[in-house]
């Protein structure tokens, strides 16, 4: 049983590890002003998995930050600039995926998984405490099956 549980846990860890993708670009991003940073923090680098646009020094991200600056200079609000990037490149560029449609799963799966684990943990704890109490309070019960078998054997003999 222990081996089975260990295997199940290792499988879970392996699956979760599969979801983390290594970064392809390293280094530090050149200085950007606060307004550009505010928008860039809400966006992902389109070429490095999981990296924030604000911190990414790749050529693509430098261009995107330049575009953010240009759009802010033209009078667009930070939300309008974010919407522009979402419309042009898709919801995948958003640091926080929208809580709707297919991306809703991204929010629901971790919550669901946490709920299941916590519920299982609570159930186990409850079972453990019940069993403990039962062990303390219940007198040693006779082996019911053995007793029944004895009676049945005696009846058979008597007949």
């Amino acid at each position, binding site marked *: 049983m222990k081996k*089975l549980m260990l295997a199940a846990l290792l499988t879970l860890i392996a*699956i979760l590890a599969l979801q983390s993708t290594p970064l392809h670009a390293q280094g530090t991003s050149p200085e950007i002003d606060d307004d550009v940073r505010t928008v860039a923090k809400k966006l992902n680098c389109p070429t490095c998995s999981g990296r924030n646009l604000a911190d990414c020094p790749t050529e*693509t991200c430098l261009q*995107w930050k330049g*575009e953010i600056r240009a759009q802010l200079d033209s009078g667009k609000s930070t939300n309008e600039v974010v919407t522009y990037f979402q419309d042009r490149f898709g919801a995948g560029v958003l640091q926080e995926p929208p809580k709707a449609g297919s991306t809703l799963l991204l929010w629901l799966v971790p919550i*669901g*998984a946490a709920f*299941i684990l916590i519920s299982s943990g609570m159930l*186990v704890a409850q079972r453990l405490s019940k069993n403990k109490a039962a062990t303390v309070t219940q007198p040693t019960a006779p082996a019911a099956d053995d007793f029944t078998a004895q009676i049945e054997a005696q009846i058979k003999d008597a007949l």
Partner: protein
Amino acid sequence: MKSRIGPFIIAGVAITALISLGFVAMNLVGQKGNRPTVGSQAPDFQLELYKDYRADLPETAQLSALQGKIVVINFWGSWCPECHVEAEALQRVYEKFRGRDVVFLGVDYLDTETEAYRYLTRYAITYANGIDVQQKISTLYRITAAPETFIVGRDGRVSAVIIGGTTEEALSQQLESVLAQ
């Protein structure tokens, strides 16, 4: 007692693992998969062309509407160094084959409009070019990096796939070969 709590732990871990596995599978199917291969039907798409880069095509070019012609689909981005290297060669090949029922479609990938226009002007590109809105075309063709070039034959099937940059000579040879089919 161990046997009583064991199943609950296993069930909890198993359910969590199944959910995570489903999530990972969804991710893999949605983002990776296989790119169209030689002989397979080229996925149809619509490309919103940049102003001044329509080359006699409508504002929105559709691949299926070009059936009967040979189509060169080139995925590029102004941020990609290798795209800069092949840009002039592509334009020369376009000029060489344009009168022979060969259409070029440049699909601008992950680019800003300002930088895209700068790139197109810099290399004096005249063939049709447009933006890959919401990465729909690059997703269809499973693009993971630029440049990538697909040659689609008259029957709408993929005739060649070029991963990475190409040269005037190599692309010309491939087009001659497709034209001869």
